[in-house]
């Protein structure tokens, strides 16, 4: 087996798919929230005309995500077909629900490496999931963030898997020391993962708070300008200020 074997590279494909799903899910979550709880908020009227209140970031993420997903699956199936053509008798199925392709079980060494790596991923989940639960519990924010945190964990899982298999393929793994060091409580990888997840978990609500504050300041300015000009200021449903003469 070579370093550039499709199965060795498979965690990278998973990461690419997860990144695309993050973009796509932003649009999907927004669309579903809108349809379920705020469908009237999609439209607003000014005088006789009805406008559609497009939320551009989510519309863009839906379109870009959809296109990226199609492109991803086209490239993936081409690569898979190529692999199956070059490896008759060892073909991979298109979908990985039953057995992920990255689990290498060619012989007893690969089985041992896979067991060792999955043990490390088990530890990553055991340490990172309580942190994610804690963050979700205390952050009153958009549910997209919760999805993003879980996707972040999956990306970390795949990155760790790829890192470990790559190390083995480059001959840098020492299998004579396969046991996990109990004194070393948190691996560097887990620490970095938890730090990144926490950063994003806190950054998103902070950004929302800053955005709300900026909007409020802008609205107050518009209100003041309106009143100074001797007009009547009305706050509309979509949080804009309508300035009209008395």
């Amino acid at each position, binding site marked *: *087996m070579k370093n550039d074997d499709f199965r060795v590279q498979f965690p990278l494909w998973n990461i690419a798919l997860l990144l695309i799903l993050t973009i796509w899910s932003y649009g999907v979550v927004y669309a579903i929230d809108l349809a379920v709880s705020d469908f009237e908020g999609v439209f607003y009227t000014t005088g006789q005309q009805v406008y559609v209140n497009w939320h551009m970031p989510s519309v863009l993420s839906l379109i870009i995500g959809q296109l990226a997903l199609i492109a991803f699956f086209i490239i993936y199936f081409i690569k898979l077909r190529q692999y199956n053509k070059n490896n008759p008798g060892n073909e991979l199925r298109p979908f990985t629900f039953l057995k992920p392709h990255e689990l290498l079980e060619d*012989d*007893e*060494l*690969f089985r041992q490496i896979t067991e060792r790596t999955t043990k490390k991923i088990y530890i990553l989940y055991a340490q990172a999931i309580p942190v994610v639960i804690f963050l979700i519990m205390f952050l009153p924010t958009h549910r997209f963030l919760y999805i993003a945190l879980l996707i972040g964990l999956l990306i970390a899982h795949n990155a760790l898997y790829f890192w470990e298999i790559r190390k083995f393929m480059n*001959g840098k793994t020492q299998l*004579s020391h396969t046991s996990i060091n109990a004194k070393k409580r948190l691996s560097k990888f887990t620490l970095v993962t938890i730090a990144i997840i926490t950063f994003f978990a806190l950054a998103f609500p902070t950004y929302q708070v800053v955005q709300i504050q900026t909007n409020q300041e802008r609205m107050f300015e518009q209100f003041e300008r309106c009143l100074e000009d001797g007009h009547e200021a009305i706050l509309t449903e979509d949080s804009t200020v309508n300035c009209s003469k008395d």
Partner: protein
Amino acid sequence: MLHNCVKELRARYSFSQTELANRVGVTRQTIGFIEKGDFSPSITLSLKIAQELNVSVDELFWLEGEGYNEE
């Protein structure tokens, strides 16, 4: 730690790692890791390698401190 003389015996028969790996039904990486002493093979695999190299298992593998068995 488990020591072995797979590399020396393989050289004697002019087998490459890939060739020996194919003969015993494992990957090239497995032979490489066994030679480095980083991987302890199962009894089945040890027997297969010993058979290919025309030696007994205890001539092929020995524990640290027990000495090099090859004549």
